[in-house]
């Protein structure tokens, strides 16, 4: 059957099982839109291309499937770059299709031409410029395979207009053949044995779980291992939800704004088992002082993550789930009760750190404390909501005070730190999981970076709830200025914020506001119960800081507590 490139595009996506794409049309991809209109694929029209990429990203994180977005050439393509880089840093499987001017015009500075493949080369796992229609089906097949296999990541495919219009015989390839790409899934049994031996020997072990546990769907295996060997688990920001936050062995998040006891435990452990974590500077603090007494086991599917920032004793290249399954198999003869007793003094020590320096804040009768809002949100949703965050204080409070019980429920731009990520990501997650409650925890600064997507939410009846912790500042930078720049608040006061309740109403959504602490619960109850998209605007204590804090470049034990 001879099909045009645009028809091949739509057919291939269906072969890949794509049901949903996020995008915005433009001149050179009108052929695709013409075909999309006749296909069963559901397209969500965004208001800015950055929103489309974050939606595909949120869709991927919540569903575990590959997220897809489609934009036009030139500015459409460049608008996706932030989202592509965010997905790259967090290893999220998305495929971004960009339009391109006809092949004959490439290089001529044509209208809406940009070298998007050149621009995104360092922030995609791989990217393609399709030069002839005969290559299109194969490249789409490869793109989806590359996005989800190995260490997942974003793939960008650039589609010139003539490629979409030319016709060729369509046959979707069954297999991908890439001689130069063969990720290692299977962990080496010898290394697994070494790791198991260290676990049995260790007196003060700790598991350090990252986003890799979520993307390899290894939460169950992780829990089995931790419980069997009575090893406490701390997670990175990206690992939240990989281990149940309410579990007795859970230490919560470590790092710059991690819990005191998690940071102390890491600093005093004699064995650190890193699973799908890449030793990011926000998690480790000053790397020379990170887990100084510990032997380190590092499980990661990406060999470049191992020995990049820290030297390790037992490197294990492989899929987290495969490695953990093998470890559990090897340790299945161990007696959990015995290990419970054997680790008691270590767990007691951690409990003591937890009791002496709990995660806390000064409650107030007059001002709404942002932490209080998150606590109440956690109680009301019983920890079952999907939470997206923006970046800054809102993100850290969400990470600290919302205890995530299951994976794929915390969507945050951990690596790149994109303000404006949370709201579109929440929309994508809601599309993927229509039956779940999806909430974006935002600041008054970051919500304005992609607020235009409210139109997308309203038009498609996507009932995302937005909780704005409104302190009138770019709060995290203000906190830096307070602590390290002698309170010189340069350019962090947000004058001219809109009335967020009226803004919601202007879009046809619903808005509520809470000013006093006693209004918090009623507003949350009303807001969460309302059917469509909702903005809940909480006017919070303006100069509240995220604590504890390990200042950048300091060791984990050098925490600023109050």
């Amino acid at each position: 059957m001879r099909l045009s490139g645009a028809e091949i595009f739509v057919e291939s996506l269906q072969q890949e099982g794509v049901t949903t794409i996020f995008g915005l049309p433009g001149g050179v991809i009108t052929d695709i839109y013409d075909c999309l209109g006749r296909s069963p694929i559901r397209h969500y029209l965004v208001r800015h291309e950055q929103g489309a990429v974050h939606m595909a990203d949120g869709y991927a994180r919540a569903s575990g499937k590959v997220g897809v977005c489609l934009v036009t050439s030139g500015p459409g393509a460049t608008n996706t770059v932030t989202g592509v880089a965010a997905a790259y840093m967090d290893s999220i499987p998305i495929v971004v299709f960009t339009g391109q001017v006809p092949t004959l015009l490439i290089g001529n500075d044509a209208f809406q031409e940009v070298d998007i493949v050149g621009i995104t080369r360092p922030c995609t796992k791989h990217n393609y410029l399709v030069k002839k229609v005969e290559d299109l089906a194969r490249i789409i097949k490869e793109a989806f395979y590359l996005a989800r296999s190995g260490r997942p990541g974003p793939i960008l495919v650039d589609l010139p207009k003539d490629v979409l219009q030319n016709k060729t015989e369509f046959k979707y390839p069954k297999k991908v053949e890439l001689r130069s790409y063969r990720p290692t899934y299977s962990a080496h049994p010898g290394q697994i044995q070494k790791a198991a031996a260290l676990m049995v020997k260790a007196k003060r072990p700790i598991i350090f779980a990252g986003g890799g546990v979520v993307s390899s769907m290894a939460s169950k295996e992780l829990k089995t291992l931790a419980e069997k060997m009575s090893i406490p688990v701390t997670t990175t920001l990206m690992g939240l939800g990989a281990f149940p936050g309410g579990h007795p062995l859970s230490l919560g998040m470590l790092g710059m704004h991690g819990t005191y006891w998690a940071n102390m435990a890491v600093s005093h452990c004699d064995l650190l088992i890193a699973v799908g974590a890449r030793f990011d500077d926000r998690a480790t603090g000053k790397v020379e002082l990170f887990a100084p007494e510990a032997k380190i086991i590092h499980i990661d599917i990406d060999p470049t993550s191992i020995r990049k920032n820290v030297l390790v004793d037992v490197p294990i290249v492989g899929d987290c789930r495969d490695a953990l399954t093998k470890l559990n198999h090897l340790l299945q003869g161990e007696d959990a009760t015995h290990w419970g007793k054997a680790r008691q003094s270590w767990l007691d020590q951690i409990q003591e750190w937890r009791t002496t320096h709990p995660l806390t804040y000064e409650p107030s009768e007059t001002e709404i404390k942002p932490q209080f809002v998150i606590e109440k949100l956690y109680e009301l949703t019983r920890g079952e909501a999907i939470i997206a965050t923006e970046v800054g204080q809102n993100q850290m409070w969400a990470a600290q005070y919302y205890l995530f019980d299951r994976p794929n429920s915390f969507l945050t731009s951990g690596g790149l730190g994109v303000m404006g990520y949370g709201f579109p990501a929440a929309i994508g997650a809601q599309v993927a999981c229509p039956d779940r409650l999806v909430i974006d925890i935002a600041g008054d600064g970051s919500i304005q970076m992609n607020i235009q997507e409210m139109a997308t939410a309203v038009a498609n009846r996507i009932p995302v709830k937005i909780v704005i912790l409104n302190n009138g500042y770019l709060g995290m930078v203000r906190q830096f200025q307070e602590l390290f720049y002698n309170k010189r608040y340069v350019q962090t006061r947000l004058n001219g914020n809109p009335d967020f309740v009226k803004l919601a109403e202007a879009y046809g959504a619903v808005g509520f506001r809470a000013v006093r602490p006693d209004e918090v619960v009623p507003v949350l109850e009303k807001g969460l119960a309302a059917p469509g998209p909702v903005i809940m605007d909480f006017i919070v204590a303006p100069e509240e800081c995220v604590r504890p804090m390990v200042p950048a470049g300091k060791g984990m034990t050098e925490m600023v507590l109050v």
Partner: protein
Amino acid sequence: MDNQPEEKHTISVLVDNEPGVLSRVTGLFSGRGFNIESLCVAETLDPQVSRITLVTRGNEQIIEQINKQLNKLVNVIKVSDFTHTEFVEREMALIKVRAEAQSRAEILRIVDIFRCKVVDVSPQFYTIEVTGNESKIKAILDLLSHLGIKEIARTGTIAMARSKKEPPRREKKSPKDNYKEVDPYGEKDCE
């Protein structure tokens, strides 16, 4: 970790012969702050594969990262680090040197000693073609410099692993073997 000694490494990278692949490789080096001392690219016997030979410098951990990061690129087929192995490396340089009546004889003597060639002659200049490893090229440049070097062009290093030095097995030759190395010692050394 940072105070390991730095060392020069010659790395050969087989890549898909496609547009943009070189920029993926060089972009990786610039993006991650690795340095490239020289770089050579050309097609191999298989026209779909190119060989990039690059010379870089770094401590053990950096070289390990370079190897791993190169391997991670989808278009990279194989990475071999020749350092600490038996290998042949060569570089070519064209040197335009001032050749006045009184210095011509000396230049030709140097050319003879280094087994290079004079490839262009003008009333004032000789252009010399020299092949060898980096130190040989440096040596001839040092010797010629007082005569007045006007211009040089260098290729950067290319390298190849030496074949195993076992006695050749008696086998029937197939036409495919024609491109296999004739000289098991890499090449007749000219140093």
